[in-house]
């Protein structure tokens, strides 16, 4: 697994909620300490395989209460792809 997709949530509670959702859906993931350059949100992040991105996005959007920032691994650092707000909409 390349772990080239990074999800960051506003709170640790939401990160752990996402962990639970991904585990329930059988999606491989790893909870890590958030990379230093991403300054906002909580101290944790979840890394996943980019190939799973569409499925993950659907899960996060359908939860309706899991605002999240999606990052991809760039050449030198993580780059923001998009955000989903608390109502499950693209922000």
């Amino acid at each position: 697994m390349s772990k080239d997709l990074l999800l960051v949530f506003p709170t640790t509670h939401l990160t752990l909620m996402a962990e639970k959702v991904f585990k329930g859906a059988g999606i491989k993931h790893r909870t890590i300490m958030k990379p230093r350059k991403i300054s906002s949100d909580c101290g944790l992040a979840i890394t996943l395989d980019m190939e799973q991105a569409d499925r993950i996005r659907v899960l996060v959007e359908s939860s309706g209460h899991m605002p999240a920032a999606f990052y991809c691994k760039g050449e030198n650092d993580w780059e923001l792809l998009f955000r989903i707000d608390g109502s499950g909409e693209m922000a």
Partner: protein
Amino acid sequence: MTRPTIYLNNAATSWPKPQEVMEGMARALRELVATPGRSGSAGLASERALFEARETVAEFIGSSDSSRVIFTLNATAALNLAITGLLEAGDHVVTTSMDHNSVARPLARAADVKGVEVHRVQADDQGQISADQIIEKITPRTRLIVLTHASNVTGGIQPVEEICSIVRTVDGNRPLVLVDAAQSAGVLPIDVEKTEIDLLAVPGHKSLYGPQGTGFLYVRPGVELIPLVEGGTGGQSTLERQPEELPDRFESGTPNVPGIVALGQAVSYISRRGVENIRSHESRLLRILTEGLSGIKGAALFGPCDPSSQIGVLSFLLEGMDPAEIGSFLETSRGIIVRVGLHCSPCSHRSIGTFPEGTVRVSPGIFNTEDDVQALVEAVRDLQRARGVM
């Protein structure tokens, strides 16, 4: 030989605690070394433990979103957050004369400082109120209705479901309903989403059988409160102001990890035993107490005296005797622990006509037996015989 203690003061705090609650707390102290959100990966184990406890509590009260469960020091802290965090100048509140001081005092401050108007519905001489009494006091300015799910003085149950279902039909600005479940959580079934309860305050250490220093407030989505405590939340540290997201918005500072972990264990324990089974057990003990004490000459019982409308809490007095003397006799001569006085609820005692002396309150729990409550009845009978009343 030391006489065993018969503990009948579970309405104050339950005792003993289930083995797994004690073990959960000890394990947390031993193994969860780091502060959640503040100690790198070592803190993650603590975070997960808090998350699991929050999920357990949320499921127990019927909340599909565990972030709406705010851990607090006790029910009093939860009630203070709900009342002080919500009310603003010009608001109107409907409450009842069966309030505990943990409701009455924050409301009094809201009246003094913010000019909030508080209408206290008067209970009857058994401490009971009807849904109609509450509903007819609602005005367009009513922001909050406070209900005591079960009285800590009489055990009387207030019609929370009925009131919530009527409040749902109110046109315009629907008042919010705050339920003080200090005595009922763990004994009466509670489903915040089905009943549409807006705010629910619960202690961990009473009928949930968790440790002291734990409790929680459920906040329904869409209900906005101002935090009473602000500070570090372990995340979003770049923000100058308190974050908006729950539970962080209301949980600044290092949390009581061992206590909350043990509370999660306690709620799991109560769920496994079953609230209906617990209610049935306490009703059986209450029936023995009610029938036994009411047959003693000179004894006066207060409240509904009916297990169908009362939890396992019973107040009584003996004619011509100070309740403190009765409590002292029970403890020193029989090792029976009860609570005497006003039970931090003077307005309840005014309602049932026992102010300012108060009553003797008997409150069995899940670990009490029929022999325990029978021993209390026998002790009171012996006391009356010794006084020459019988």
